[in-house]
């Protein structure tokens, strides 16, 4: 590969463009050949296949699962399967779905709100103990959730929250990771001059937060929101421990479905498909932001 080294200090716009391009693409090593495409296509197929298979079974009758060679095209039974799923009294699927929406939405809103607020304070406001407190937050990120599982459960027993949705909402309204992430982002995305100017104009810090900081950190806040929503939607261990079958999140409904003695696979798979669909939509709609979030997070970590 022969690349003309860009000459510094030229006014040639083409050279500037070339220079910028080569910086942007970083160390992308050469152009992709056919072999690369084949391998990537294979990887993509393997990633997508289990999801595709889930939708196939969800749209067919239950005997599909016993047929060999396996059937790999969707059928027209989705409506029937969903109907059986909704009629299933043990699974409380619809309620689980609604509960999950409620829980995930509340946790997401709270985490984004509290994280941006605290992130702003750590990044842009001066106060005593700032660095020490930030260090505490970073340290909390290293603690595994499961360690607190049992005492958290005892606490819920004492509060009388076992089996209630607030048990899976309230403990997760804040996130050390979120605070840290928003602090890092706010530090670079919000200019000090802007904040000083707003202060001179007599803005309270709360107004500065709302009118200056929040608009500036919106991209990162969106990524944090997406991740928090996904994580809460998919959470299993804690809801499984503290909630009951008649007030489940959608993941618990799935577990109930799959642990039944008689396995109606097309019904179960219709459930997994419906439970996955919201997140797939989120992924397809916000794919670029999610990719960006993972890659930027990787650089900061």
């Amino acid at each position, binding site marked *: 590969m022969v690349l003309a080294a860009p000459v510094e200090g030229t006014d040639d716009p083409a050279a500037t463009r070339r220079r910028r391009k080569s910086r942007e693409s970083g160390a992308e090593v050469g152009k992709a050949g056919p072999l690369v495409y084949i391998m990537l296509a294979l990887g993509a197929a393997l990633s997508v296949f289990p999801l595709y298979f889930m939708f196939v079974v969800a749209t067919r009758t239950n005997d599909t699962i016993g047929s060999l060679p396996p059937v790999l095209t969707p059928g027209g039974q989705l409506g029937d399967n969903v109907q059986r799923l909704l009629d299933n009294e043990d699974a409380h699927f619809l309620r689980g779905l609604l509960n999950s929406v409620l829980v995930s939405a509340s946790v997401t809103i709270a985490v984004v709100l509290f994280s941006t607020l605290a992130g702003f304070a750590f990044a842009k406001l001066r106060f005593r103990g700032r660095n020490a407190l930030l260090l505490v937050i970073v340290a909390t990120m290293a603690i*595994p959730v499961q*360690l607190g599982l049992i005492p958290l459960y005892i606490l819920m027993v004492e509060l009388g929250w076992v089996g209630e949705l607030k048990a899976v909402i309230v403990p997760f309204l804040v996130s050390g990771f979120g605070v840290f992430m928003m602090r890092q982002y706010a530090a670079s995305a919000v200019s000090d001059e802007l904040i000083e100017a707003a202060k001179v104009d007599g803005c309270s810090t709360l107004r500065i937060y709302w009118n200056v900081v929040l608009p500036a950190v919106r991209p990162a806040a969106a990524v944090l929101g997406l991740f928090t929503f996904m994580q809460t939607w998919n959470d299993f261990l804690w809801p499984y421990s503290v909630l009951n079958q008649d007030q489940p999140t959608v993941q618990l409904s799935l577990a109930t479905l799959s*642990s039944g003695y008689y396995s109606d696979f097309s019904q179960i798979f219709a459930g997994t498909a419906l439970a996955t669909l919201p997140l797939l939509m989120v992924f397809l709609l916000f794919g670029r932001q999610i990719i960006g979030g993972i890659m930027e997070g990787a650089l900061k970590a």
Partner: protein
Amino acid sequence: MSTDVTTPVPATGPPGPPPAGNRQSRKEHWSALRSRADSKISPYLYIAPFFLLFAIFGLYPLVYTAWVSLHDWELAGAEHPWSGLDNYRQLVTDEVFWNSLWNTFGIFVLSTVPQLTLALLIASLLNRRLRGRTFFRLSVILPMATSVAAVSIVFSQLFSRDFGLINWTLGGFGISPIEWQASKWSSWSAISLMVNWRWTGYNALIFLAAMQAIPRDLYEAAALDGAGPWKQFTRVTVPLLRPTILFTVIIATIGGFQLFTEPLLFNSGSSNYQGGSLRQSQTVSMYVWENAFVKFDFGYASAVAWVLFLIILLFASLNALAVRRLGGKD
């Protein structure tokens, strides 16, 4: 109350003729006071929600676990007598615990090593000038969108003995049907495959981000020295990626040692928390869960949870050492 000389009094009010009335100056004084209070107190108000909620639902449980683990603590019991290190002593000779630790370790190795290797490979494939970049990136992280519960259910079906797609495919190569749940190695492999499927793409993107931060000149210099693509990969990319590899290994350790949902739902029946009739695939987390929520022996469960935490710490630091050595001689 005197005004702090170091704090500039903010200029307030609209620009206009300054009526230096008494009222106006009192107003100014008042607003200066308010803004001073604002800048002193509000930072603490903004970070308070985190610390408050964390203290109740994070720190307190953590300390409390240690406390509970030193007691003979059953949920139904009215009293929780002090038992010192009894729970920990019991744990040392508890074969079921050691079995679950061994299972966790086996699954961890089977899921981390292939996962990170594959992720490196995919990242280096993605790190080229490519058509459909976003499509490929998105498709490899699509598994993240599925819940662990859904993944476990779908894969359990794919792994089913009689009608599973995997046994059918293997049958095409003349391999007789495997009962994946039945033995250690097969259940470990199946569970690891679920973990790998879900997380490889995520790690690939993390590696990709790190690869793109490597200056291009290094590759050009290596190419001038006659290094082919493979040599460039092992001599330039991998050593420079060491911090990132370390990061992913630690994340994988923390996640892998807490593995719970995949093995739970991979096994069927009402005692699926045992990980099969011979506890072939019971992980430590499942054992904690069994002690806490089946036997309601909170004291012992807490002891197991604490030991698990210490093991995670130990392993994360061992792995950090190992990765630091990896390629460190170059």
